[in-house]
């Protein structure tokens, strides 16, 4: 087994240093840190900041949609000139929608989710001192930070941030004359995304390398927790697809700034002919969605991995179908690359090609259903412990199923003609991707908070947070299906101009109120988070009686994670309620020979190998 003892290496490195074992300066310890645990917390806190900002933006545009006649002058101190005579500027509305999408998809659910939990859990759960390259890991965070600063600044420029939707389709995004947000705001969006992609790739390469090369002794691939499998496959998807978005963005930069015509064909603006000829905006959509669709799974898979771990732990049962879970992760990952054109059924694509993409899209239902089934089968007759993390994980399974079902409807090329770009789509992906991933992320924070900060989050606040969020998510997104079936399109500043849509005014008002309450409930979590870091109940070593390796580290793991030798691994991570065992869990580092009463026949055979392994290691 390939393991590198970084602990030993770092001692050798320090030998050249005059002050061996000196404490790191504040700057190196908390700001420019190379420790994966600190970087994870940096990602988490940045992600929470962006979540509040991105969520807050949706509150502003929900006000506009729910209360189209309201006077919004009271928002003037915040939004300034974007409120004109008590009304929101329509271009600002589009800017809000665009920023909300970009922030939530990339900054919260990609960086905030993968960045936090891949960084935090990979070394701890595979038994490594740190990431393969701490320096690249630090760079990954600071590229993300630079990307965040660029995006944040773009919100405050006079012409407003990018406003062509988070998918930034040209020609709207390519022509600065098209709308004010397509000027400097769009340039900054593209720069920010380029930096973001660099950050994501640095992170992903590090995750993959660490998982493949730095596993501790005995941690074979089939003994890895499902979290690690999910992070591994997510990173692989990211490495394969993000460069394609980079190329799409690069060509768009060329079209915008250097006079090329990759995406632009003959276009007149205000009677003036542009010089562009022969390009195709469809090319952009192909390149964008070649990332854009895998991105959905980059967002979702880590949440599913976290859920697998939490559901097994808190059901006190082995995960149902461990290998099927791994297989379905790979199935989803593979299929995610060959379904992108289902976002483009109505772009004038050949209907025959559409039917192929429809078939491939619907096939994703199979691995997804395997996962949903396995979650339910794991819960079945388990001794369920309803911690807040467990509730959020079960909530994830719920929204994953109800959001996934509408995916079958949208994946149908014929039905998509009616539903394309309506609120039905908005409802679908906010449930299956937005809410599910968000639930997974929050579940992860509740579950691993003790490991991160050595204290527990308050449970009662957690329960309140869960129930409001769970009902809130359904109350907000479920009615959107009806509005969508009626044909109400996305990114509409107002629905009052259409007879067909103005009858949904009440429903829109209802959604807005539900959204505001749900958003408000997130501050319970923010309060709980900040309060518990300083004042939370102190945790025990293994508060959830979990099997994975991170709970074998000290309560406050230092640099290098384990003070002594890294524990060896002798079993898979799901030995919960094993018949014959005295406890209802057997951690991965407990040898089979230590629990002979619980060994299955084939494991009893393995005890001999284990003893041989020990005698070899002794020399």
């Amino acid at each position: 087994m390939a393991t590198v003892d970084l602990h030993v290496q770092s001692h050798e490195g320090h030998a050249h240093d005059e002050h061996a074992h000196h404490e790191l300066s504040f700057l190196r310890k908390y700001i420019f840190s190379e420790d994966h645990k600190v970087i994870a917390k940096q990602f988490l806190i940045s992600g929470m900041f962006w979540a509040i900002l991105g969520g807050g933006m949706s509150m502003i545009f929900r006000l506009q949609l729910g209360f189209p006649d309201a006077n919004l002058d009271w928002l003037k101190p915040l939004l300034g000139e974007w409120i004109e005579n008590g009304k929101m500027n329509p271009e600002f509305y589009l800017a809000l929608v665009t920023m909300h999408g970009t922030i939530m998809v990339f900054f919260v659910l990609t960086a905030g989710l993968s960045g936090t939990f891949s960084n935090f859990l990979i070394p701890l759960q595979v038994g490594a001192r740190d990431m393969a390259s701490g320096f690249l890991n630090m760079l990954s965070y600071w590229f993300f930070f630079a990307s965040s600063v660029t995006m944040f600044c773009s919100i405050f420029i006079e012409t407003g941030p990018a406003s062509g939707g988070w998918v930034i389709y040209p020609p709207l995004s390519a022509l600065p004359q098209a709308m004010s947000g397509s000027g400097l705001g769009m340039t900054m969006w593209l720069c920010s995304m380029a930096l973001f992609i660099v950050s994501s790739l640095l992170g992903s390469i590090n995750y993959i390398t660490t998982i493949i090369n730095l596993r501790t002794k005995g941690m074979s691939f089939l003994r890895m927790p499902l979290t690690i499998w999910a992070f591994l496959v997510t990173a692989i998807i990211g490495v394969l697809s993000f460069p394609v978005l980079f190329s799409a963005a690069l060509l768009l930069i060329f079209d915008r700034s250097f006079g090329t015509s990759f995406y632009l064909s003959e276009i007149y603006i205000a009677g003036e002919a542009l010089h562009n000829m022969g390009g195709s905006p469809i090319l952009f959509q192909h390149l964008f969605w070649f990332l854009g669709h895998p991105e959905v799974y980059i967002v979702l898979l880590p949440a599913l991995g976290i859920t697998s771990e939490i559901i097994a732990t808190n059901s006190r049962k082995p995960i149902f179908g461990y290998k099927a879970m791994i297989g379905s992760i790979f199935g989803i990952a593979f299929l995610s690359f060959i379904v992108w054109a289902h976002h483009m059924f109505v772009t004038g694509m050949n209907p025959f090609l559409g039917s192929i993409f429809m078939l491939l899209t619907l096939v994703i239902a199979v691995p997804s259903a395997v996962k949903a089934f396995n979650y339910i089968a794991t819960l079945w007759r388990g001794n369920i412990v309803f911690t807040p993390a467990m509730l959020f994980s079960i909530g994830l399974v719920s929204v994953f199923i109800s959001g996934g079902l509408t995916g079958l409807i949208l994946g149908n090329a014929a039905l998509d003609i009616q539903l394309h770009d309506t609120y039905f789509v908005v409802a679908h992906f906010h449930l299956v991707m937005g809410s599910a991933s968000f639930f997974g992320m929050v579940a992860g924070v509740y579950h691993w908070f003790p490991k991160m900060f050595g204290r527990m989050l308050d449970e009662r606040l957690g329960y309140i947070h869960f129930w409001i969020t769970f009902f809130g998510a359904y109350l907000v997104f479920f009615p959107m299906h009806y509005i969508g079936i009626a044909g109400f399109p996305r990114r509409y500043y107002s629905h009052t101009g259409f007879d067909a849509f103005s009858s949904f005014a009440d429903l829109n008002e209802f959604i807005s109120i539900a959204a505001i309450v749900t958003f408000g409930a997130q501050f319970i979590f923010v309060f709980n988070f900040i309060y518990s870091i300083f004042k939370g109940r102190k945790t025990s070593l293994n508060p959830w009686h979990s099997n994975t390796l991170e709970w074998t580290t000290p309560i406050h793991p230092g640099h290098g994670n384990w003070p002594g030798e890294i524990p060896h691994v002798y079993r898979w991570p799901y030995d919960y309620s094993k018949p014959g065992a005295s406890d209802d869990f057997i951690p991965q580092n407990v040898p089979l020979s230590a629990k002979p009463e619980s060994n299955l026949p084939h494991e009893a055979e393995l005890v001999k190998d284990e003893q041989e392994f020990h005698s070899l290691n002794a020399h």
Partner: protein
Amino acid sequence: MDAVPGMPTSFWFTPTISTSEMREKTGNSEFNYELACTEVCGRGHFAMRFLVMVDEPEEYVKWVASQKSWKSQNEEYFAESLKKFSSNERTAVKASNTIEHSSL
């Protein structure tokens, strides 16, 4: 169906209920089928509304016959632009006509 610059796209459908039938059905004498823009296209995206009239074939023929030409509705504009056109532009038009003829 998306309008794609540089690429003609088309889309067929067969309506089964005409506007007047729908007006009876809904009891709303002002009912109209509405066409809405679905691909975000800029500031006025939300206001790109068109009315679609679904009619019986005979009614449609009658309606077409009753329409006046654009010219007859805009006599003034037509006369004015003809005046402008006749003086200095005529030669250019002639030239382009001969080019078109020769290319045929």
